[in-house]
Each structure stands twice: as C-alpha cells, then as structure tokens.
C-alpha cells in the first residue's frame, strides 16, 4: 500500500494529534510532579538563590542607576533615566569643543591679517617706493653680493 502523505492542515488529524499530545503532556506533568525530594529541594534552593542574587544586584547599583534594558545576550543595560538638564549637560562638551575651534580659527585669521598689515605698513612708510621692487635692475642690485 502506498504510504499516506502527511497533511498538517487536515482538521481530523490535527484534532487527533492535539488530543494525543495533550494526553502525553498530562503524563509528563505527572512525572514532573513526582520528582525526588532531593531534586525538589535543590530547585527550591536554586529559586531562592536567584532571588537573593537579584536583590544583591539591585542593591549593588549606584543610586539613580537602574536596569534600562537587556541585550539579546541577556546582559543588562544599566543607566539612569535622563532628565532634560542631564541631556543638556551631556551636550555641553560638544558645544565647548565647537566654540573653541571657532575661536582658534578666528584668532588665526586675525594673526594673519595683522602680519600682512605690518608688512604693508613697512613698505608704505619706507623711502623706497614699492614700485621699485618690480624694476629688474633694482632686483639684480638686491641679489648681488655687497661690495
């Protein structure tokens, strides 16, 4: 006889499957409730220990710090609920950094302008007119070694 293919959506088979699973689960429950006394005691101890550890863990957290969430690996993510001024304070270092960089840029530009102004002032107040520097002969005179 050709084997019958399984049909997971067949209501009759599903019903039978569910009833059978329920009766087997009932049997498993009977077995679970008939655990040896030693195992029951160890489970009770494990439960109490886990609650003690949880209590210790909560006490070990600094004031204001609490478990904010848990990662998929089960690690607790700790922190405190930030208020508006705590959030503002956390942005403060960034604001200070940007302000410092702007101040440095402004100071550096000012320094360059001052240096250029000094050169211009020297040239303009000199007895030699600035146009003399564009004269090839004067340039040659400047490059030639002193006698």
């Amino acid at each position, binding site marked *: 006889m050709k*084997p019958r293919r399984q049909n997971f959506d067949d209501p009759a088979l599903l019903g039978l499957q569910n*009833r*059978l699973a329920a009766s087997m689960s009932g*049997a498993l429950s009977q077995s*679970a409730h008939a655990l040896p006394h030693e195992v029951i005691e160890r489970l009770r101890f494990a439960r109490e220990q886990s609650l003690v*550890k*949880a209590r210790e863990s909560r006490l070990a957290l600094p004031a204001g710090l609490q478990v904010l969430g848990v990662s998929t690996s089960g*690690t607790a993510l700790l922190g405190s609920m930030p208020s508006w001024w705590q959030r503002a304070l956390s942005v403060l270092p960034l604001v200070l950094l940007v302000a410092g960089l702007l101040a440095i840029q402004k100071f550096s530009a000012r320094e360059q302008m001052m240096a250029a102004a000094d050169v211009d002032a020297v040239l303009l107040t000199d007895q030699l007119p600035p146009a003399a520097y564009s004269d090839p002969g004067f340039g040659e005179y400047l490059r030639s070694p002193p006698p």
Partner: protein
Amino acid sequence: MGLHAAESALATEKEISDFLKSVEKRAFKRAVYAVRGDDAALDIVQDAMIKLTVSYSDRPAAELPMLFQRILSNATMDWFRREKVRSRVIQNLSDFEGSDDDGDFDLLESLQVMEDTFGTESAADAVARAQMLRLIESAVAELPGRQREAFLLRYWEEFDVAETAAVMGCSEGSVKTHCSRAVHALAKAMRDKGVDKP
C-alpha cells in the same frame, strides 16, 4: 506619568518567585530531556532562574513565561557549548535539522491507538502507569532537539503557535511542522516499544 504606569506593571519579587515555583519542575524535566543528566539540568535551570531574576526583573509579570522559556533554551545551548562534547554537539546540531523520514507507518492509525491507550484508565495500575511514564519520557528525550522543544512548549507549556515560534526564533509554519513530526514520532516510538494495545 507614563513611567509610573510602566512601573506598576513590573513583576514584583513575589510574582517572580511564584512564577518560578510554578515552572521549575517542568523546566527541570525539559532540561533533563535535553542533557540527560539531573545535575546538569539543575545547573541549567538555576542559570536560567538567575538570568531571569537579575536581568529581567524590570519586565511585566505577563512577559515572564516566554522570557523564561527562551532563557532556558539559551542556557541549555550554553551548556552544550561549555561541555564541548563534540559528538554530543554534533548530534544536537544535526537534531535541529529534523528529518522527513516517517516511513510507511500509518500515522493516523497509530495516533488512534495511542489515544486509546492514554485516554482510558487501562494504566490505572501503578506499576504499569509508572512504566508507561518512563516510556513516554524516554521517547520525548529521544526526539530531535527542535521537535522536542516545539512539542514541550506548545503542548506542555501550552503556548500558542505564535508564542512558540517567538521563543524558538522560527516561523509558525516550522512550529506546526516540528509539533506534528514530534507527535508522530512519539506515537511511532511508543508503538515500537509495544504500547499498542489498551
């Protein structure tokens, strides 16, 4: 205001304790079926309990069952990793792939026979009943890992298909398939062991 509402929904220590008390025996048996050793199973259950109470105490009580089952599954896998028993890990991993080989055995007929066997009072005799329980436990322990997990979550922990899928991290279709195969495999195993007459 929202914070207060969230806080009021969090599980209290008593709720967590009561919850653990209600699931610890089944959790222990579930771990035993997986690792086949009482001491290892107790370690796994204790690890799972600690992880739940320490890391998830900020969750509402209603979320505890699914969280705990997921933690228990992860703790069991962690145990296998820690043990580094190569053959066992390989067997366990291969278990997760499942099998389509159900042979030509008449599933429907077997299910009916099994239901008759467990649905009547024929096993009222204490010795016969204990023997029957051992057979069932042995058959459950021999199921492939994913099938056993799906079967126990769905029928023993009484999770619905969606919840079982969420705990197992798979689709609802996979859960149905695993459950169906598990029940059929259990029925076949029981019949193979001679439990075919009420």
